[in-house]
């Protein structure tokens, strides 16, 4: 027995020593899933370049698709890859749980911090200003249109471009026309999970609502039952009961099904962001030239687009060497604010891949405020253009308007969305639902959560 133990111990020591000598290992969570053969081909070219440039880093292809039911077990067990892509909703709880690495120093050393779009940077920082993520890209919500249904309903201008709605009132009318002419829903509204509340907050802004306020003492106040917010919810209720232009059951629609409805022509309009143009097309079969995007319609309170960013995060147990190795990889992918030849090549590979796979090539939203970089990206995208620019111009015009972009509500956004989603579910399933009363309850519930978690 003793002998066995000592043998094991020696073995462990040897392994430890070997580990110390070994080169850095980059566990690449951003490596694509097995079936995405096209994206894998792109990444193989990145890895080839990377290995030539950084021969002492071992690259491990460790595809990880972030999901909330798998992340914590992996994080606690230390099996999360060095770098992985996550969602815009996650920074706060990932930072709070110490599940991801603080990369402020590494970013500072590279001079990337100052180049990060300030709103996005706030999104990825804790209250002390330490930064935990690198944005893959930024996004802003808009309205995606199925042009084929607009054509079938005769809603196109002389050039065949769909006559998109500019206000919420127009949207209801447009939706009605399409429903009457084609039998398809005018709008796919989400009410299954938090994505419903997320979209609704953008509608509420257009009606003039602010959903959370801070009082003079710095205390956060839930404001879901203001006249404006209630008017917005009443509008949603009318979409169902007065205009009847929604898909059969909004309470079964989530982010993914919305794209299926839009892509297969079951719905003509859907609130979605510019970074998801692959979803209705490549994923759900809509022809590339039948997808249009315009801005979120305006309301009595103005026109806003909810803005956020998709982050890359780094495993909490990653060493500075590993973090740097991962950042170097992002440079080669062209996702960093460094315009090297490799980065330009990386962008090209990506744009070419999108074109070949029927994904609209449209300009990404700059997550880095580096004019040279933005210009270069624009140039590469137009080089591989596969869409009619007029189909996306209304969207880019809307978000380029001063004051249009707006970050999500600052405190406990997910809990707020959950409360709003419950109200959405009530108003689209019950014709007699009392909007004011429901919004009062939602606001009170949110206040309770704010008091418990923020105002303590």
């Amino acid at each position, binding site marked *: 027995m003793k002998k066995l133990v000592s043998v094991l111990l020696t073995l462990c020591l040897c392994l430890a020593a070997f580990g110390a000598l070994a080169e850095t290992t980059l566990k690449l969570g951003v490596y694509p*899933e*097995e*079936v*995405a053969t096209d994206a894998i081909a792109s990444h193989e070219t990145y890895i080839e370049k990377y290995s030539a440039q950084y021969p002492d880093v071992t690259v491990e292809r*460790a*595809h*990880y*698709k*972030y*999901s909330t*039911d*798998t992340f*914590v*077990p*992996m994080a*606690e*067990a*230390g*099996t999360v890859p060095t770098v992985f892509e996550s969602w815009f909703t996650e920074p706060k709880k990932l930072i709070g749980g110490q599940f991801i690495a603080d990369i402020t120093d590494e970013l500072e050393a590279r001079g990337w911090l100052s180049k990060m779009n300030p709103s996005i940077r706030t999104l990825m920082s804790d209250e002390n200003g330490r930064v935990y993520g690198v944005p893959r890209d930024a996004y802003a919500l808009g309205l995606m249109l199925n042009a084929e249904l607009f054509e*079938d309903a005769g809603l196109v201008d002389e050039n065949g471009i769909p006559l998109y709605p500019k206000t919420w009132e127009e949207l209801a009318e447009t939706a009605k026309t399409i429903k009457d002419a*084609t*039998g*398809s829903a005018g709008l796919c509204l989400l009410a299954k999970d938090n994505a419903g509340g997320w979209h609704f907050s953008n509608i509420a802004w257009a009606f003039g609502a602010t959903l959370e306020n801070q009082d003079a003492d710095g205390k956060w106040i839930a404001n879901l039952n203001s006249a404006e917010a209630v008017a917005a919810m009443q509008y949603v209720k009318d979409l169902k009961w007065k205009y009847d232009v929604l898909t059969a059951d909004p309470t079964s629609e989530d982010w993914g099904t919305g794209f*299926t*409805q839009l*892509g*297969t*022509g*079951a719905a003509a309009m859907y609130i979605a962001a510019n970074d998801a143009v*692959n979803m209705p097309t490549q*994923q*759900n*079969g809509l022809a590339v030239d039948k997808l249009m995007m315009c801005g979120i319609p305006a309301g009595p309170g103005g026109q806003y687009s909810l803005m956020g960013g998709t982050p890359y995060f780094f495993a909490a147990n990653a060493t500075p060497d590993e973090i740097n190795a991962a950042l170097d990889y992002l440079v080669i992918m062209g996702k960093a604010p460094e315009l090297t030849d490799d980065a330009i090549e990386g962008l090209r590979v990506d744009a070419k891949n999108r074109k070949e796979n029927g994904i609209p090539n449209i300009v990404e939203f700059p997550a880095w405020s580096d004019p040279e970089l933005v210009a270069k990206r624009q140039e590469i995208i137009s080089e591989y253009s596969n869409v009619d620019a007029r189909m996306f111009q209304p969207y880019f015009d809307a978000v380029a308007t001063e004051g249009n972009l707006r970050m999500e509500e600052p405190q406990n956004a997910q809990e707020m969305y959950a409360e709003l989603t419950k109200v959405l579910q009530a108003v689209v399933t019950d014709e007699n639902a009392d909007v004011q009363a429901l919004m009062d309850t939602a606001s009170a519930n949110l206040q309770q959560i704010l008091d418990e978690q923020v105002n303590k």
Partner: protein
Amino acid sequence: MKSDVVFSGAVRRYDLKRPGVKVGYGLMTLFCILAAIVALLPILWVIISGFKDLQEFNRGVKNLTDKRYYIQFLPQSFSLEGYLKTWNQFKYVRYYLNSLAVVTGSVVTAVVVNGLFAYGLSRLKPRGWKVVYGLVMATLMVPATTSIVPLFVNITKLGMGGSFIPLWLMMGASAFYVVLFKNFYDAMPTSLLEAGRLDGCNSLQLFFRIVLPLSMPINIVIVIYAVNAAWSDFLLPYLLLGGTKLETVMVRLFTYRTSDRVNNMDIIRAIVFSIIPPILLFIAFQRQITQNVMSAGIKG
């Protein structure tokens, strides 16, 4: 008389001469037929739907003259193209083999380890067994959802990530199976075990030579349950095997929820792929299975 052999329940042939009984019996038969249809129809529906393409499934078929969409229950063609695409694209052969490996190992531990444990609780009853049995019963009541995190941490600490071993071993710790085994062993005649003892068997030999072979009915029940459970499990298998070459069929279906490259049709077909093997297995062994389940009924 033959009729009395088949009419072995409460209703006999001559009862049917009375109109009330006849109607009641007719309704009962109708109920059984309906139940069979309700049980089978969803399975049939999903298999048929797998032949459709996404638009056909989600939106119907577009009529080019009036530009409206129409519902069709049957797919436009029964070509296997869709199924083949999903099959090849997602490399199902490998997932089947992996699932088979998980199931095989799990079944062995499910029967041997839980059986031994229950045998101890039912027959050997060393001092303190009641406490342990209480713990096993309590396990049934406490939801295990959140304990997945400490469990996975422990497994990783032992360096057993990325292998089938934890999945095999885990099936050896099922409170439900232990209870079922114990119920069965409790009802086993003591004389058989006594005879074994007199032949000089120790406890372990007794279990493997006498108890286990005499428990075929319950063994088969547990085998069916374990095959089902091992085949169906997804969260721990995902954590252990996700991203490796060892992913199982259900891990695949589980990852589909979040995949960027999967649409409804792939999910529909994945459902079909995940139910065909157990169904074939069940039909192949139908006679043995139902007969043994029947004779093993809990004498609760």
